[in-house]
């Protein structure tokens, strides 16, 4: 890796200040950033570690009943919480034990890898992403492959998940990386059903609105029978064509509905 300065602030305010340096990059669990640095694919002037900031760690339930997860909370802790079982199940199957004990939910959402699992949960739950500056609705947050609404130097501090009546995530693994070749998060709320698909689209995680409408009136796998996703704008690579991903997205949606019950 290239040489860089390193800071590990103890407070959010110090972190925000440290991030004002040109080419400073926030480092959370480092499960994507560190390999990128090792391969010399990134050349930050400074790494600002967020893992020493206690105020952005931990899990609680707020007055509105939302599960609030500090951005620097590791996957293993998300997997261990009991407030939102479908989210816990998703976190328990991210990477391997080493990844789950270093990687954080905030790091994953800030990176917005098109094949990551958390974006599906955040979008599928209509979560709110809180930063040092503002709150961003998940629907406005994911803007494309590796792209988000975050501004330069902006730091995610917390993610607030409204807890659905029932939900499930189904991941079809890419054989090599075991990231989601396609992952589908289905959540049923009193006011409707949300379906978020990760891994499939060239534009990153997206909501499958036709499926949401169909499931809104009949929450059963059979309700999806007549629906079909368009594979033409889906990722096509050595692991599968766009059409294959479109097909798998439907199969995973059905299975998620069945699992959610």
């Amino acid at each position: 890796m290239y040489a860089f300065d390193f800071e590990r602030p103890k407070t959010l305010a110090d972190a925000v200040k440290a991030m004002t340096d040109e080419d400073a990059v926030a480092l959370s669990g480092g499960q994507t950033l560190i390999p990128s640095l090792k391969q010399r694919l990134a050349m930050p002037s400074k790494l600002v570690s967020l893992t020493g900031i206690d105020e952005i760690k931990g899990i609680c339930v707020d007055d509105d009943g939302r599960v609030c997860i500090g951005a620097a909370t590791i996957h293993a802790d998300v997997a261990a919480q009991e407030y939102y079982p479908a989210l816990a199940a998703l976190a328990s199957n991210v990477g391997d034990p080493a990844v789950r004990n270093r990687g954080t939910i905030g790091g994953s959402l800030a990176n917005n890898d098109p094949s990551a699992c958390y974006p599906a949960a955040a979008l599928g739950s209509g979560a709110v992403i809180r930063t040092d500056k503002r709150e961003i609705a998940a629907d406005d947050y994911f803007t494309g492959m590796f792209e988000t609404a975050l501004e330069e130097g902006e730091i995610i501090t917390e993610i607030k998940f409204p807890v659905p009546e029932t939900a499930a995530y189904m991941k079809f693994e890419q054989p090599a990386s075991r990231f989601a070749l396609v992952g589908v998060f289905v959540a049923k709320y009193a006011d409707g059903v949300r379906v978020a698909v990760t891994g499939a689209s060239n534009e990153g995680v997206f909501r499958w609105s036709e499926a949401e409408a169909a499931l809104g009136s009949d929450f059963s796998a059979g309700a999806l029978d007549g629906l079909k996703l368009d594979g033409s704008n889906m990722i096509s690579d050595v692991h599968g064509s766009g059409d294959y991903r479109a097909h798998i997205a439907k199969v995973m949606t059905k299975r998620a509905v069945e699992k959610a019950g």
Partner: protein
Amino acid sequence: MPKDGGIGDATKRREDVRFLSGTGNYTDDINVAGQAYVHFLRSDVAHGKITGLDTAAAEGMPGVLRIFTGKDFEGVGGIPCGWQVTDKHGEPMQEPAHPVLAQGKVRHVGDPIAAVVAETREQARDAAEAIEVDIEDLPAVMDMKAALEDGAPKVHDDLSSNLCFDWGFVEDNKAATDAAFESAAHVTTLELVNQRLVANPMEPRVAVGAYNRAGDDYTLYTTSQNPHVIRLLMGAFVLGIPEHKLTVIAPDVGGGFGSKIYHYAEEAFVTFAAKAMNRPVKWTSSRSEAFISDAQGRDHVTKIELALDAENNFTALRTETYANMGAYLSTFAPCVPTYLHGTLMAGNYKTPNIYVNVKAVFTNTVPVDAYRGAGRPEATYQIERVIDKAARELKVDPIALRRQNFITEFPYATPVAVEYDTGDYVATMDKLEEIADVKGFAARRAESEKNGKLRGFGVNCYIEACGIAPSALVGALGARAGLYDAATVRVNATGSISVMVGAHSHGQGHETAFPQVVAEMLGIDPGMIDIVHGDTSKIPFGMGTYGSRSLAVCGSAMVRATEKIINKAKKIAAHLMEASEADIEFKDGQFSVAGTDKSVAWGDVTLAAYVPHNYPLEEIEPGLEETAFYDPANFTYPSGAYACEVEVDPETGKVTVERFAAADDFGNIINPMIVDGQVHGGIGQGIGQALLEQCVYDESGQLLTGSYMDYAMPRADDVPFYAVDHSCQTPCTHNPLGVKGCGEAGAIGSPPSVVNAVIDALQSGGHTVTHIDMPVSPSRVWQAMQG
């Protein structure tokens, strides 16, 4: 019951203590005082002309000691090829130069252009980025068939085309084979791809070169399966260093699977630079670098045809294969698709007419060479897939069709130039049907169907020629070296023993299994015996480990040397007991005089050999150390029958291996636990090839699967618990241990049964698919199900 620690005992591997506790001594653990570090600047394009190479800025970077380019290697030899194949017209193969550093042209992504030596690894890498290289892109030659068309761009301008050779085997069989097809009652044809694989040993390659001015001698520490081969090739062909001035040391090596047989440019570079700079130079490959610089495996495209008569007897087999050589000829590359492939095309069957055609082709890709099995997996896959397809076309049981055509009498001379000494294919198939529980399959299929899954059963046989190899035979086939091996048994005064062997252990368990043989022969505790390997200054000249040869060839040398030890020890014992040598009996570590109660122990004799106070010096020399070289009379021919059961998820196409059974005939077995482990690992690699692994380049020659994010290695949960049996034993008739070798069997024998099982599953679900190329990935299965 086997004796404790002797032949047949499942002794735990003594080397695992250091491997599992992190105390192994690997090449990267070796640091020579004053060493500098090299980083190779590698081509990021597949094919291009170097029009500018400016190192001036880089030379001024911190810590930089010297930058080498192709110019520094003008007049230095290139990386040699160890085999010369003669084509079907009797002409030698086209053999391009393979420079240590690129000379004017780059021919694959990863081809080294320059080498920066600096005080630290990071400084070398920083400086490499400051080198200015101008490359004029040339069209990349990627597809083998397109590469052979008129007017195709040439990988090597000085060759007449991209064809390395067009080989016919056996050329004299061609007319009879074609005639047999004319009169066949049924012909089954199959076109298939044996995809390119990356070997991926756990330890990437490392090389440390050192030069000693006082003695004008060199030491190379390297991750090699055969240090003497590296000394021979690099010393004689590349750098011109005589053997007595060059030591090659391959310490603990973390897996090779073939990819560490070959002499690589990086080894020559660090040795050359160590003298040029009078400083030791170290190179450690990154995993990313391994993907573009380690020789890769397989990459054959084949059309195979099987002719049968009206009674379903095989009457002829004909193949046409395109074999990718990559951009240069790696050490063994030309022999893999020819003598390790064509000679195996009879398989386990008495097909009377066989003709194999192989066109070896240069492309702008990483060189291809032997990878676990090497040529034999490709042969087995073709034969066993086409037989399965024939059985389905003829609506006969695939096992019955195989049984009907088995070779049953031995020795058997095949139409493809080899003679199988022993085997019992009926016995291994009987054993397979038992351990695979063929009878229970229908119930298991019904259960799977209840769960919405398609279940399939696939079987295959395999034969391999290993224990490589008789020197006279391989010499006639084009090998430029002999393939014997050697062992020195050094008995110490107290009776402990060091056995110096030419074979190299990098996962095979030699350090445990070899002492078991000597302990059995001498009747002593195997703990008194250590194996020394991997250092050319300590061991006799041996050819190393590959082709399942270590025990069959080097183990045989060790037996011969131990026999010499026993003969001499008997003479000493006879003297000590004042008896005639003819009356000396040696059993369980005791020498006794027949018909008397007189005896002396092993330790008494060894002490006398080194403290010859009372010793017949006029008749025998003091000391007790013997060397033997062993060159086998034939290959060995392990064989077996494998069965795989898969479930296919019809909605996603995902295949899971539910059961896997392997019945092998390895001849005699020294350590059954190690044999189990070798078979388990081999099957894991075979399932990896069948379902997961593939090395893919795009049209411009960029590697799309250059990391584990896209190159799918098999993991523990991709494979089931295996049923492995090696109780069918027809000992090899021509080596003293009766052993055949087991290192490659699993990888050779497993891919066809996996694919056969998938086809069986899909056809059971009403799909008409007859073939899917490996890896049988979910998307390929789904695509096939779409019709």
